[in-house]
């Protein structure tokens, strides 16, 4: 894949008008509504996520931020009786279009879950899983190299290089979560969705994950859901505030935490509710 191609020319005609900075729009969501059965969980969400930036979603529990994150790689398709209205385009392609390939989408848009979910396999096999099912590598040495690279990118290599063959379930919680990040990185996605990736971790493991996120931004577009506003402030370039299924405000993180445009945002950030 050549992410640099989108740098070359401003081919994103319509998107250009509201783009705040020089970066291209990676994900564009337009008037998205989402329903669990008859309950509407997301109301009329429109947002643009720029390339190679970190965007954080904040908001109280049940506000729809995780649901929204999961619409970006169609993970909600797994849940029965859900319905999506509106469009989500990634690199100009509508991911909910009738002919869109979910498998291709998920290769491009990786995901890290709230609870680390390593497969009950060896550390190596966990990272190699995506490479194997997608037939990315053609030789064993190439596979080894890609696994090593992914583990290094996830800052886990030095801790596990001597026990790649042992079970992933023997790792600590923080290591398991970084393993899941390595697993997602191995297939070289373009976007990484993170659903409260550090919520179950201790402060040291959390800071490792946060450093990692800042580092990964050089190559990937990252969208992170977090409950922790300090975390959002530390790692993200842009922040979006959700409340009761609505997107209240999107702004640069700096502005969001110092002088938000909306009263509701200010109330939430200063702890008046939520």
């Amino acid at each position: 894949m050549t992410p640099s191609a989108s740098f070359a020319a401003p081919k994103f005609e319509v998107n250009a008008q509201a783009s705040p900075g020089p970066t291209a729009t990676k994900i564009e969501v337009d008037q998205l509504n989402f329903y669990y059965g008859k309950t509407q969980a997301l109301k009329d969400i429109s947002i643009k996520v720029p390339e190679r930036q970190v965007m954080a979603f904040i908001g109280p529990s049940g506000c729809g931020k995780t649901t929204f994150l999961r619409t970006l790689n169609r993970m909600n398709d797994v849940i029965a009786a859900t319905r999506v209205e509106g469009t989500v385009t990634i690199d100009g392609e509508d991911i909910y279009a009738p002919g869109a390939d979910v498998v291709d989408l998920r290769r491009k848009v990786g995901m890290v879950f709230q609870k680390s979910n390593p497969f009950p396999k060896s550390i190596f096999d966990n990272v190699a899983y995506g490479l194997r099912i997608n037939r990315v590598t053609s030789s064993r040495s190439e596979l080894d190299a890609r696994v090593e690279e992914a583990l290094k990118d996830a800052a886990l290599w030095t801790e596990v290089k001597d026990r790649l063959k042992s079970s992933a379930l023997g790792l600590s919680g923080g290591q398991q979560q970084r393993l899941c990040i390595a697993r997602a990185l191995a297939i070289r996605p373009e976007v990484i969705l993170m659903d409260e990736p550090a919520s179950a971790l201790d402060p040291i493991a959390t800071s490792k994950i946060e450093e990692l996120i800042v580092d990964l931004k050089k190559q990937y577009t990252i969208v992170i859901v977090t409950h922790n506003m300090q975390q959002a402030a530390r790692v993200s370039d842009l922040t979006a505030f959700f409340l009761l299924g609505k997107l209240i405000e999107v702004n640069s993180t700096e502005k969001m935490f110092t002088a938000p445009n909306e009263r509701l945002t200010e109330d939430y950030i200063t702890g008046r509710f939520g």
Partner: protein
Amino acid sequence: MKVLSSSDRSRRSVSAVMTSLTALCTFAAVGILFVILAYIAMRGVAALNLRFLIDTPRPVGEGGGIGNAIVGSGLLLLLSCVVGIPIGIACGVYLSEFGGGWLVSGVRFLIDTLTGIPSIVTGVFVYAVIVLRMNHFSAFAGGIALALIMIPIVARTTEEMIKLVPQSLREGALALGAPQWRMTLGVVLPAAASGIATGAMLAIARVSGETAPLLFTAFGSRFYPRNLNEPIASLTVQIYNYAISPYDEWHAQAWAATLVLMALILSINVIVRFLTRQKFS
């Protein structure tokens, strides 16, 4: 310490009585099992020796053994596993992973009904459908009859075990671009493997004691099996035939064969225990 009131005292005595009642019932249940085992061992051990384990049946007064029945039972179990376990597992996978709505509840209901069908009915069914068509009894027919009994057991345990695999593992695989079938084969089934193996072993233990479905299908034989397309001996049918005979020597052999069968089933159950223990370690 506070003085016990009369209501405290009566509560405690009721509790003590209930505890001892349940303990008594437990001892009764376990005790009966031990009595059965001890009785079989006592009656069976007399006719049990190495020759008995390898020889084929002989006329009354000439000794003989159950070697062919042991081999026959083994082959029948093998056949039933080859047919029953893959179908059962596939069925369980379908129920839990793929199907949805009325179809699945219908299939589940049918499988539960199938579990409750008396095994002799299965035997008669296979007799009508396979034995009559082929014009002779065969190991194949016996294996299929046993497989029909195994399928619902394996299917239901597989379904239950797969349901225990956390949704997060499935989502993890899907999020890496795995199609559903690869996720099921590569992640879900391995995660449920030990539980499924337990279910399969329980199904084997269950059918290894079946007699009725073999009477009309595998029928029985006095010789070591040469191929699977002819009647074949089995421990249970052998026990049945010897037990209803009028000869004391055959009765003793029936007890010995029973002891062998019990040992077989017991060892399968021990293996099951071992497998389930590993799962939680």
